[in-house]
């Protein structure tokens, strides 16, 4: 792996997660996000990406999962026993997979709820709101409608915007591109890049859209079956033959048409 000179901002060490007391999902995952880095977490369905993110943001307990081994540090402090709320205050926030907007609140109320940890700083919150609207003009149009009635993509924007309202230093983004129109996907990643560059916000991205993720990330980890099976700089990963074939859909002669792919082709796996 390429050595990171910067202090690891977020560091998780050998984390093991068990759901329901019996289902072992993460089998010792370690990864690092350097200050101001964008790190992609890749892997097939069920590899444990979301679980990793939830173990960082401490949302596991609500799903009857627990971290049974390992440690998680943020800026040098151990955070795996903290409440999600304290974590958000410290600047780590997760955007959950599958949107999770507050259905009965209007879009704007959703965003305002995101600013909860910021207390009563009205002017700042207004400014934050404007920034989100600037990033997502579509949300401004729908600001008054109940979030439950907006389209899937709008909800995704709402969820990301809501997280931004907390002025995080580190965002755990779980499948941001899911269900978004290609243009918006680009836009969202541009926003990620922008936030990262201008405000130094760190990102840990769990993403299926490997192509885009590796384009924007600095570093990547590939997770399979609850274990990290490969890690490296984004460019290195993108050049790796296996990654190319399984994650980017590129074979020797470039991208194959989806129509022509044979589905009986057995996959090679790193593990399992």
């Amino acid at each position: 792996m390429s050595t990171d000179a910067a202090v690891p901002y977020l560091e998780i060490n050998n984390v093991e997660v068990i759901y329901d007391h019996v289902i072992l999902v993460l089998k010792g995952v370690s990864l690092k996000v350097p200050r101001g880095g964008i790190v992609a977490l890749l892997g097939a369905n069920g590899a444990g990406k979301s679980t990793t993110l939830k173990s960082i943001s401490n949302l596991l307990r609500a799903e009857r999962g627990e971290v049974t081994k390992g440690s998680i540090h943020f800026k040098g402090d151990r955070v795996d026993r903290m409440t999600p709320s304290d974590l958000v205050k410290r600047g780590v926030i997760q955007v959950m997979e599958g949107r999770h907007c507050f259905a009965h609140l209007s879009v704007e109320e959703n965003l305002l709820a995101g600013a909860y940890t910021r207390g009563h700083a009205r002017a700042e919150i207004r400014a934050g709101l404007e920034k989100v609207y600037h990033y997502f003009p579509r949300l401004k149009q729908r600001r008054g409608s109940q979030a439950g009635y907006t389209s899937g993509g709008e909800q995704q924007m709402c969820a990301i915007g809501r997280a931004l309202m907390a002025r995080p230093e580190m965002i755990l983004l779980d499948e941001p591109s899911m269900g978004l129109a290609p243009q918006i996907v680009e836009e969202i990643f541009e926003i990620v890049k922008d936030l990262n560059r201008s405000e130094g916000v760190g990102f840990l991205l769990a993403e299926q859209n490997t192509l885009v993720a590796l384009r924007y990330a600095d570093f990547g980890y590939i997770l399979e079956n609850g274990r990290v099976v490969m890690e490296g700089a984004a460019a290195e990963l993108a050049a790796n033959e296996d990654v190319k074939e399984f994650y980017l859909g590129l074979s020797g002669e470039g991208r194959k048409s989806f129509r022509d792919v044979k589905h009986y082709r057995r996959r090679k796996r790193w593990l399992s």
Partner: protein
Amino acid sequence: MLYREAGQFKASYQADQQIFPIRQDRVGFSLVLAFFFLLVPAVANQYWLQAILIPVLIFSLAALGLNILTGYAGQLSLGSAAFMAVGAFAAYNFMLRVPGMPFLLALVLGGLCAAAVGVAFGLPSLRIKGFYLAVATLAAQFFIIWALTKFPWFSNHSASGVISTQAVVILGYAFDTPASKYLLTLSVVALLALLAKNMVRSSTGRAWMAVRDMDVAAEVIGIRPLHAKLSAFAVSSFYCGVAGALYAYTYLGTVEPEGFNLDLSFKILFMIIIGGVGSILGAFLGAAFIVLLPIFLDNIIPQLFGGLLSSSFSSNLQLIVFGGLIIFFLIVEPHGLARLWQIGKEKLRLWPFPH
């Protein structure tokens, strides 16, 4: 590694669709059945039969009924006691008014009456959901009890509104001892539990569960929500009705409408939640838990604290401990005792490895 299915292969779908596909479970279950059918009546004393086992069985049946409605079809109801009342009073009136009425037929007819009433009160479920429906089912609870009290015909003009049941005779054999009543109850409950299991593992049950989990999606794949919900109401009320009739005939002997009050409805609800929503086994475990726990506490608490506590306080302490244990169990396993059992089995399967 005693509990493993390794090495047990199912050659046909028929085998795979058995109630207990794993051999150990089959053996275990047969032993349980043998225990309750053969050993218990032989050795249990009257107290156990009459005061513990019969009510546990009857409540299990009612809980099973509610579990079909709430656990499988997802319709929360607070009116189960009222449906029990319908079953009890209907069976009584069939026995009373139809000469030569066989008991088992009266039992079934009582259940059917309850089912009809259940369907009537289930009609709003098409539009009303969740707790709104739950509260709306209170209409059934209060209305039915009111009607049974108000119209003396139901209780054969008994001044106090109380009915005392006729003797239970089947094919000339009188069920009048605790052991025989127990066996009768057990047989009915076991049979109905089997039927319930069959229903929930066939397409009827799947339709119920589909409506429960997501009714829009269920409708989109062609399940008629009204049909599914009403059939759940009917079956559920039938079970409650039969339980009510047994409650009157094999357990108490005399019942009054007020005996089937809201408290009883709640109690049945506790049973399914503590036992496990959407589980047949859960209905039994829950009923046993809710019936036995207070008795256990009533025995144990005065003994533990003997002279230390006044009797009022020890009674209140029972209540406190009861409430506390309910919360405790929910926290330990929100999906009920049945799930706990399942997790236990899963651990056993992996044993001696933790995962």
